[in-house]
């Protein structure tokens, strides 16, 4: 049997106080909604494209990680689930990186006419 924070229906904060999952989920959902709002405001700000691009990717990654580790329970599940999912994620990311790099080369530009 695993220890209390990983088995019960409640988590524990840094002081050992019991925190219900309901509160955690609602707080995360509010945080995700706020981040989504910030993302939308970001695109209208007059900053450099590279800065905005980095900010959007960062916010997207934060939302992604919050959902998979809290809503999808990876934080409380066995590490093998995380490893399994990140194998797929890494392959998908590698495929995306390879395709975007390949088609950015002058000789490989897609026929768009």
């Amino acid at each position: 049997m695993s220890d209390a924070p990983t088995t019960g229906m409640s988590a524990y904060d840094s002081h050992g106080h019991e925190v219900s999952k309901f509160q955690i989920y609602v707080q995360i959902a509010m945080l995700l909604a706020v981040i989504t709002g910030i993302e939308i405001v970001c695109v209208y700000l007059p900053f450099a494209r590279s800065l905005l691009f980095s900010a959007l990717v960062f916010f997207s990654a934060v939302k992604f990680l919050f959902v998979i580790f809290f809503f999808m329970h990876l934080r409380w599940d066995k590490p093998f689930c995380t490893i399994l999912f990140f194998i797929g994620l890494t392959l998908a990311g590698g495929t995306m990186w390879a395709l975007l790099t390949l088609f950015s080369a002058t000789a490989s530009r897609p026929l768009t006419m």
Partner: protein
Amino acid sequence: MSSQAATLTIDHHHDPSTSTGIPNKKLLMWAFLASDCMFFGALISTHLVYRLHPPAGGLDPKQIFSPELTSFSTFILLMSSLMMALAVTAIQKGNVKSCRWSLLTTIFFGMIFLGCQVFEFTEFVEVKHMTISNSLLGTTFFTLTGTHGCHVAIGVLWLSLMYVRSFKPAAGNPWQKSWLSHQLLHAGTLIVALLATLKVVLSLVFALRDAATFAAGFGHFIASDFLFIVIALLAYGGLVWFARPRGAVQFDEMNAIDVESMGLYWHFVDIVWIVIFTAVYLLEYI
């Protein structure tokens, strides 16, 4: 071991009967989601490759996309994820009633998302004249977001079936003799209610959009969709009837892994949309 003692020892994150210690259903779902990552990775890459090399004279996404509608859809999908997480927590505690309400709310949010997508696609085709075959942007956009929409629709169907499953009578319940026909009718009624509601709401939105005045649009909507309104109302009445208390049900914390596996799929649909929202929509505006 008594049933109460068995309930107290349920560990929802560990299954000692498997070699990995992970429930097989959960492991299967994670493996599937890992493969689905690659599927969506390829679709998103294709869209981005063609957006980085747009054809001369092609459509301008900024003139086509509606950031307000997409932001609303994103918010709705995030809230549906919250309700799905609460449904899993509820059934892990054995709270069937709370689980049912959370599932229904998740279905409701899922249908709102699908409704927004149908509205968006209709606008793009009829007003902005972007179809799946007349531009590269249309081809990659509709393929990617349409595939995601299909995933959402499958998720809504799965949620609906799980909701109906939560009413399966327990052994000894007099309703057990006819449970299959009852469950099939219940599922059919729920699906009819969802589809009729989607049709009615979209018809109302389009009627109000196209009419000169509210009264004219509403009058046209009532005249043209009266049958669907009646069907939707009858279906909701049927759902209330099917949901009446009918004794003990065979759905408790032992079924938590089924709800959790479905929840993993639903949250995955959400994280894919998080990526699509940034990569397809927001990046066009910087």
